[in-house]
């Protein structure tokens, strides 16, 4: 059934269809509508879940960990300040291999205070051991909530998943979204069934234990091994989802017009949609351009990136964040995967969108034109700044 809903609504619908046992979420702009919708669904019975009114984001994820620790399906959602408030709980959950799914509305970090969308928040948590996926539109948001549980709970993965939506730009804009039926989702996503890392009356376990300098390292290596192995599952689940629902997302990355592109813009999230339109315009002018959409930033799709960019001369990486004292974070990550290429393309950073500054079609067209130009260009560019630098 198609409905005209916003990104937050789509998240709520995807969560409803995934039948979590407990929802524990604390409100923060621009995620609030998602958790409000979920409370309405619990109230009217269309979602049978416990709804915990937690008193902070830290408790939201801590409660979700409690839920997950006994083998129940947990959901929480946050953004920006809230994500950083609960930050210590992220590696906690990933080390404990808890298949929690969390929606994060990408939003700027104080200071200065800003409630609009950029990616500063989730970039902080790239090292946390969570799978991180960035969705482009409301449909993908809904679909990824369902896929996220399937990936997270997979026996060979057992990792928490953060589904990122651009704040306001995606959370609050409306589009036509297909909402699958309960039956079709139930056929795709079975009830949660954890045994290895949960507490059960019939098999008592000690969880979130300590490991000294004699054993800690091995626990962490195992966690890393398993997170790397999740790539295969991510691609498999995407394929299965496509077969069940008719929408494929191409796994860790997606591409648009990259096959013969001379220059490629690397994007994450909703700006990809803008980039596609700009690509169409420039292609009509016979410019060989393409867009590489990084869907997942963890695990990082280095092989896939190398494969896509191998024949182009320059790539531009769009970052809606800065790692102060260095450069855009996605830029750093992408560059490191280019290192092992015999002939890597030149790589340029386009930083924009901070604090909700629009990234317009013109900005992206400028970026493409810079990449296409024959002159040497600076490594780091700021898009759409209102004054002299």
């Amino acid at each position, binding site marked *: 059934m198609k409905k005209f809903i916003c990104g937050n609504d789509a998240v709520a619908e995807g969560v409803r269809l995934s039948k979590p*046992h*407990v929802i*524990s979420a604390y409100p923060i702009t621009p995620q609030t509508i998602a958790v409000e919708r979920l409370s309405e669904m619990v109230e009217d019975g269309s979602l049978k*879940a*416990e709804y*915990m*009114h*937690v*008193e*902070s984001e*830290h*408790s*939201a994820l*801590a*409660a*979700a*960990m*409690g*839920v*997950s*620790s*006994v*083998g*129940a399906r*947990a959901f929480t959602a946050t953004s920006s300040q809230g994500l950083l408030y609960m930050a*210590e*709980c992220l590696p*906690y959950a990933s080390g404990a291999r808890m298949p929690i799914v969390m929606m994060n509305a990408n939003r700027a970090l104080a200071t200065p205070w800003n409630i609009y969308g950029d990616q500063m928040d989730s970039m902080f948590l790239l090292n946390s051991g969570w799978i991180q996926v960035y969705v482009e539109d409301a449909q993908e948001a809904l679909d990824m909530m369902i896929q996220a549980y399937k990936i997270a709970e997979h026996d060979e993965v057992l990792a928490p998943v953060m589904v990122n939506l651009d704040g306001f730009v995606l959370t609050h804009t409306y589009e036509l979204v297909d909402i699958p039926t309960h039956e079709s989702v139930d056929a795709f996503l079975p009830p949660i069934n954890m045994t290895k890392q949960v*507490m*059960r*009356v019939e098999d*008592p*376990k*000690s*969880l*979130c*234990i*300590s*490991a*000294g300098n004699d*054993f800690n390292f091995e*626990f962490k290596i195992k966690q890393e091994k398993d997170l790397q192995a999740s790539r295969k599952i991510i691609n498999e689940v995407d394929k299965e989802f496509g077969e069940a629902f008719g929408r494929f997302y191409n796994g860790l990355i997606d591409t648009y017009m990259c096959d013969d592109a001379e220059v490629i813009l690397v994007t994450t999230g909703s700006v990809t949609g803008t980039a596609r339109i700009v690509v169409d315009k420039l292609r009509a002018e016979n410019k060989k351009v393409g867009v590489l959409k990084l869907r997942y930033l963890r695990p990082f799709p280095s092989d896939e990136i190398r494969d896509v960019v191998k024949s182009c001369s320059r790539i531009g990486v769009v970052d809606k964040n800065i790692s102060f004292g260095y450069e855009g974070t996605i830029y750093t990550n992408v560059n490191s995967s280019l290192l092992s290429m015999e002939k890597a393309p030149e790589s340029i950073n386009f930083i924009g969108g901070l604090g909700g500054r629009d990234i317009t079609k013109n900005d992206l067209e400028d970026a493409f034109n810079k990449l296409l130009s024959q002159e040497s260009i600076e490594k780091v560019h700021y898009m759409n700044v209102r004054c002299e630098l």
Partner: protein
Amino acid sequence: MKHNAKNITNEEFFYGHKACGGCGESLAVRLAMKVLGERTFAALPAGCMSAVSFIYPNMAFTNNAIITPFASTGAVASGIAAGLKALGIDAPTVGFAGDGGTADIGLQALSGAIDRNDDIIYICNDNEAYMNTGIQKSGLTPYGTKTTTSPAGKNLPGSITMKKNMFEIVAAHDIAYAATASVGYLEDFMAKVQKAKDTKGTSYIHVFAPCPTGWGHESNVTIDLAKQAVDSGLWYLAEYENGEFKLNRNPKEFASVEDYLKVQSRFKHLKEHDIEIIKAHRDKKWEKMRKYWL
């Protein structure tokens, strides 16, 4: 049926841990687990109890147990209870936290749990400082205590604040059941744990538990000191039930505060003036309790 040494189970659920010899807190956990039983899901934050019982590969709990982030005992325990309820599993959930993990960093999560009336038992093991990290002052460190962050010297008598009134803070939430206890009165403690187990909704027990290492006393007088603290009026046994406070034990005469203080090296530096402050604070509290809680 009141729990006592004869009828309480012989089975041990908390055993082989690496706590110091004579640890009051470990006794509280041990006996609480006997009352709550093998189906119990226990949540413990950072602190001595978790630090000594989950060191891979030695696990001291025989039942399900989880370490929580320091601030999150109340939240994780609430999540466990919600998850168990959603899965249709009937089993008690208990959180064991220290004084720091309750009154300071853990206060927010505890408050939230009580506000939601989550079906958990929360037991605060109060040894009056952050012991696991090396005896630093907490919100429940009493006046005049020498700790590693409130040293006693020429200028200061150790810590200069009184204990936060956790029992009344919790009661102010109109909690389903709350009690104060002491490892010096073990039958009373076990009876209160049973009451908490039988309470639908959140219950809170604040158990006073001496720490030989942190307090600087002989390891064999732990129970003794816990009793003396109650008998001298420095700690009290009370309950909050059905919206009313009740003092369980009202000594006609207080035992000697000096006798209690002088065997603990954390109080060795106290001058007469400081002891007067301690006694005055005690007297003020008891005047109120005797007026309203009897």
